[in-house]
């Protein structure tokens, strides 16, 4: 067991993947000497050289487009998008090429490309640096979309994503980069939770909170606080957004009868909408109340002095818990 921050756990995970497979490459803006603006790739260029850790020109479409070409040549590129809000210049390459080329080739071409995106708010940043664009990608068939919430998952899921033969959009909650946990880097990969599985991170019987990425911790805190009101709150870390581990979710909600989805992204047509629709379809008769959604307002991310109001927090989650019981 080693105590690692999320940033370091991801770093160690990539390092391990690069050691295991010489085809694994890292590419992105400032990923080399600087080690990325969050230092997630720190030291990798020093140890693996410029051929494997590539500081690219400043062009996100170029990053993903050339990563696709490298994958076609047998490489496994791990691309860093510097901040969530800068993924959009790459949208075309991700949506029309990365996601669709495998089907286009009737499975003859596989694109093991990982697109790492530090995401979410809470760090007092300027515009475009605090967004949660996951819904753009969960709606894009052909991609896997996952989100890690803690160092253990950071370490394992990044390696699983790299090993996957499917393209993976990998969300990292930037405001959790510096939070620590004990990571068992010696555990066998066979014992890791598959990266398309959800995990019940706290058991409860009255209401299920569904979250991923940065909001898992917030929900755990809310669950603890709700205990004082005598409410037993279950928290599920979804981990995989596409595919959703719907059976585990349904199992939980059928038991608790109440469900709240929590994410930072704007509510309107956010990923919470898919969960709410799907869970309702499967759990219609066990639901005591509609699935509630707690998320960002359906507005662009506000200036940082307002972000504490914008982002779901303990109070907002607890208020939703009250509401779901009041139904």
């Amino acid at each position, binding site marked *: 067991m080693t105590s690692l921050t999320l940033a370091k756990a991801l770093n160690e995970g990539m390092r391990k993947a690069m050691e295991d497979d010489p085809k694994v490459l890292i590419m992105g803006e400032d990923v080399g000497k600087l080690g990325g603006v969050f230092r997630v790739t720190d030291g990798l260029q020093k140890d693996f050289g410029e051929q494997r850790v590539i500081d690219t*020109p400043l*062009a996100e479409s*170029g990053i993903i487009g050339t990563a696709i070409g490298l994958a*076609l*040549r047998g*490489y496994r590129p791990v691309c860093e998008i510097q901040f969530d809000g800068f993924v959009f210049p790459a949208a075309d390459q991700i949506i029309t090429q990365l996601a669709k080329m495998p089907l286009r080739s*009737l499975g003859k071409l596989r694109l093991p490309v990982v697109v790492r995106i530090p995401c979410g708010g809470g760090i007092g940043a300027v515009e475009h640096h605090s967004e949660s664009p996951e819904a753009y990608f969960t709606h894009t068939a052909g991609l*896997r979309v996952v989100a890690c919430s803690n160092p253990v998952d950071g370490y394992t899921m990044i390696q699983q994503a790299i090993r996957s033969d499917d393209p993976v959009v990998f969300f990292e909650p930037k405001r959790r980069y510096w939070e620590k946990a004990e990571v068992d880097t010696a555990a066998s990969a066979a014992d890791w939770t598959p990266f398309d599985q959800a995990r019940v991170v706290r058991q409860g019987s009255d209401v299920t909170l569904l979250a991923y990425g940065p909001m898992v911790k917030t929900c755990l805190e809310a669950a603890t606080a709700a205990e004082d009101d005598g409410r037993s709150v279950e928290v599920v870390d979804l981990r995989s957004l596409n595919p959703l581990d719907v059976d585990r979710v349904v199992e939980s909600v059928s038991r608790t009868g109440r469900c709240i989805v929590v994410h930072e992204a704007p509510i309107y047509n956010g990923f919470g909408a898919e969960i709410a629709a799907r869970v309702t379809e499967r759990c219609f008769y066990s639901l005591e109340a509609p699935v509630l959604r707690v998320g960002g307002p359906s507005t662009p991310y506000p200036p940082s002095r307002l972000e504490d109001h914008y982002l779901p927090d303990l109070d907002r989650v607890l208020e939703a818990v009250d509401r779901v019981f009041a139904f």
Partner: protein
Amino acid sequence: MLTPEGERVEHPDYDIDLTPEEIRGLYRDLVLVRRVDLEAVALQRQGELGLWASLLGQEAAQIGSGRALAATDMVFPTYREHGVAWCRGVDPVNLLGMFRGVNHGGWDPAEHNFHLYTIVIGSQTLHAVGYAMGVQRDGAENATLVYFGDGATSQGDVNESFIWASVFNAPVVFFCQNNQWAISEPLEKQTRIPLYRRASGFGFPGIRVDGNDVLACLAVTRKALADVRSGQGPTLIEAFTYRMGAHTTSDDPTRYRVASELEAWKLKDPIERVRAYMFKNQLADQDFFDAIDAEADELGKDVRKRCLALPDPEPLAIFDHVYAEPHRLMEEERAEFAAYLEGFEG
């Protein structure tokens, strides 16, 4: 190197010496790919294809460059490179699949070192550069050749691919078929200077070649490929040619271009000049030409027959190949859809 009248002209920098056999081979290629193209247009007219993008007029650009390739070189085409596909040994019937709507791409790119057709304009240029960066990392000496049109040069992706190729000195050759039109838009909507000069702004050589001269296209592409193989970095080739047909079978060029332009380009036909040259220099006799024509007809018939026999995919194929690894949602939707279909049968 070959005038429209079939005169052979020497060029100081780019000379090639071809055997009569090789010239005959090029002629055969040109005729056969034109024939396949005509057949496809006819198939579309008869409702057997949803669409076809004709290469008419661009045969020399495609065969010249395509025949310059080594088998181990990799090619990234647009949707119009039927002639290059031919050079890469792709069965013409496989090209028809996506236009008939039975698949989105019907051959194995690895088998032919010929990537799938790409419809989103310009996006394949980045794939090609990435592929070439992979070749570099492998320490291999293969070249990568990527095709795109005059219109494509306006896309951000194409310009980014120039930047990447130049910064990484990637072993890639950019082959722009300037056929003067991007659907209804003439060249001046994309540039105010000749396209080959674009390369100079990115720090690598650009060259314009007569795209209707198969020998010139062959010579220039060979040289550029040799350059990248020896580590000299990218070249942009602008093959100056003309789209003799409609943009695709859905298009109506009479709305936007004048007949005289077409007439002028007819005089520069890429096949006629090779034929004239061969005649003049007795590289082939009438029997040879007749035999090629007969072969072309056979090929056309064969393509037609096998096109009609292309099977429609099974409904459940919608869910195939979307992911490489098991994916819950796909399995669930597939099962639901299978049950739904059974409901009808039952």
